[in-house]
């Protein structure tokens, strides 16, 4: 029942996003869309995924969209009718193939579905003895499929390099100087007493919560990705309320630009140490004498690497966007 309601809301929000001419509203609706998707994941008991979707989809990516809008403007040109025909055909064809596939899909929630039968049982039954963390999702992401997660950190790092190449954050000679005198909207935001007070209340708990999510990821939902994003959103909030320059004084972009690489290298270093100790890349069991302890240290270290890279990349991208829009 609740699934149906959420799906209906999802459809409605997607339709509205497509139809809207006003980009600002559309962006806010994408945030709503992410919240709805996160709720669906929640209902499906995929707490870690829901957490990530809420933090990334509803939080950070909305802010990036808004920052982009601040550069390009809020209105979109109306699309001529003939231009929508080809995409419409592609989308309809895709939809038809998806519907066709749905005829043979395992029933929703089917316990005998192949995904529950083949690889998953070992994760569920043996991960506590082989890897350790009570949160099995962490075991899978950080250890069994740690190489994928390494690749994902690589993806985030690549995005950072791409943004840096195109927009160039932190490469200003004197980045602490106010870039342009048109900081007017930010100034006015600083004068909003309610906003400022609420922000003061929220920022510190957000940052501390990020640390909790970082270090508690092997027991509860969370981990480096979520923690990094939450930490970054705390900084965004600070920058939005107090302006970009105090935030950059706090985290100088030139130095911050090193951290994405440091996180990735930390992750890789764990893998290389295990290679030096005679195991394969990212085999944490050989890190120390006791395999379980090794897994534990390994996971903590790589999650830290993930957190550092993700947080630093997000803040860097935010800074380079806002340097442009100011």
């Amino acid at each position, binding site marked *: 029942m609740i699934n149906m309601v959420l799906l209906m809301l999802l459809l409605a929000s997607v339709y509205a996003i497509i139809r809207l001419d006003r980009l600002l509203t559309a962006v806010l609706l994408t945030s709503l869309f992410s919240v709805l998707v996160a709720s669906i994941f929640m209902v499906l008991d995929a707490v870690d995924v829901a957490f990530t979707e809420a933090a990334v989809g509803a939080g950070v990516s909305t802010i990036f969209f808004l920052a982009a809008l601040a550069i390009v403007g809020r209105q979109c040109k109306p699309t001529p009718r003939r231009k929508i025909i080809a995409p419409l055909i592609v989308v309809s064809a895709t939809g038809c*193939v*998806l519907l*066709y*596939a749905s*005829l*043979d*899909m*395992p029933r929703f929630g089917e316990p005998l*579905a*192949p*995904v*529950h*039968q*083949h*690889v*998953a049982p*070992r*994760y569920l039954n043996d991960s506590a003895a082989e890897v350790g963390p009570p949160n099995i999702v962490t075991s899978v992401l950080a*250890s*069994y*499929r*740690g*190489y*994928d997660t390494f*690749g*994902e950190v*690589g*993806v985030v*790092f*690549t*995005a950072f*390099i*791409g943004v*840096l*190449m*195109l927009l*160039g954050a932190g*490469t200003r000679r004197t980045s602490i100087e106010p870039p342009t005198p048109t900081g007017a909207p930010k100034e006015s935001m600083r004068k909003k007493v309610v906003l400022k007070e609420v922000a003061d209340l929220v920022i510190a708990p957000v940052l501390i919560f990020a640390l909790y999510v970082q270090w508690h990821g092997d027991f509860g939902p969370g981990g480096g990705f979520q923690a990094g994003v939450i930490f970054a959103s705390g900084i965004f909030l600070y920058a939005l309320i107090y302006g970009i320059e105090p935030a950059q004084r706090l985290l100088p972009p030139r130095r911050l*630009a*090193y951290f*994405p*690489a*440091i996180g*990735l*290298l930390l992750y*890789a270093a764990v*893998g*290389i140490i295990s*290679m030096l100790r005679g*195991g*394969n*890349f*990212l*085999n*944490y*069991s*050989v890190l120390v004498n006791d395999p379980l302890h090794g897994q534990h240290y390994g996971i903590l270290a790589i999650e830290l690497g993930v957190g550092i890279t993700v947080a630093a990349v997000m803040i860097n991208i935010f800074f380079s966007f806002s340097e442009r829009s100011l």
Partner: protein
Amino acid sequence: MIEQLPAIVLLLPLLAAPICSMIHNGDYAWYLAAASCWLAAAAAVGLMAQVWGGHTISYHMGGWPPPWGIELVIDELSALVVILVTVFAALVISALRESLRPKMRKHRHSLYYAAYLLCVASLIGITVTGDAFNVFVFLEISSLSTYALIARGRDRRALIASFRYLVMGTIGATFILISIGFMYMVTGTLNMADLAERLPALSDNRVVQASFAFFTVGVALKVAIFPLHLWLPNAYAYAPKATTAFLAATATKVSLYVLIRFLFDVYGLEFSFQQMRIDLLLIPLSIAGILIASLTAIFQTDAKKLLAWSSVGQLGYMVLGVALLNTAGLTAAIAHMFNHAMIKAGLFLALAAMIYRVSSSRLDDLAGIGRQMPLTMAAFTVLGLGLIGVPLTAGFVSKWYLISGALDKGWVPLAAMLIGSSLMALIYIGKIIDVAYFKPCKPEHAEVREISPTILIPCWVFALMSIYFGIDTRLTAGVAGRVAESLLGISS
């Protein structure tokens, strides 16, 4: 040490990339980038030595056995593609430094090298992995780094070309992800060998069929199979000079490798070709691609666009070879992957050298350049002959196999068409050579001199390779033939 080689070949560029991004001095970053590429190339040769003759290496990431963990699998085909990526990346980066020098600030160079290394690493990652989802992860790195590399092109049109590629590439990547998700839904595994075991029993399952459709379209976008090639000409034409050489040589080839891997090894020969009849789709499309792209190339007035369109046509040859589904055809496809990569990288590099001197890639501006830059233009001509498929060049070897593949099928008109399309290549390459040697030089280019050895030497290495592999075909057609037989299930 030796058993860690599959991880080392990938880690060399992947770890050099973040270090590069932290080095502010572009020259030091270049030394590091070039060194890591050459070391990776050496590691790739080491891998080939290990699998030579048809062996397979499996490397368990994190020490977890597949299908629970992620496995890297190296066989002759993947070793050949890794050699292709690393050696050509190393040769191109050796030339890159010169072409960047006046354009950007020093730290920008470091970032550029970092993006380049990420692209190299991800292409290696895609090639060596034995896990379907892992393919997607590295595909993302390669896509993102490629967009960034292209967007650094000479003018604002590069941004638009990059954005178009981003939209198309994202659609392709999404389709691939849907496909992998579908496969996981009905098999419960992501390991490619494991999938291959489980999928045949499910060949009537609509989810598998849909996943096949999504996969083919998604990868076809990445390979730039006609008519999904529209992103390619502009992306290649407006990308920075030497980047084009690297991308043209490797990116589409690796996507083609993924296509071959999944069609033959994951979905299986019977499902792909006998049940889904993918060859009925690929053969007409590749023929149309060869003819239309070659024809378009003939009418280009911009040398870079001309070569880009020629790439679309040449990819058509490879896809056609795959779709012919006989030993000769598949040998041609795999050998041409290598041969064309070498030839096109060399051509784009030589062209980059000329553009570097005259600051334009329009054919009019290249008039008479053959007299000003004789060595560069000579290399270009040798490589051009290879592209046409003149005997004693690498291009001849792959075309020979392709034509015999067509004749094995008894398709004489197709063989004739292939010879006809080589004549079209003769026309468009001839156009550049004609302009360069026989047109009077523009007065403003009278001062143009030969390019420095840092670009010239890689150009000539490519040119000499094109001749060497036209004579000694053990690495190209030899490996390709063995791989083709094993893919087709013929035991030699």
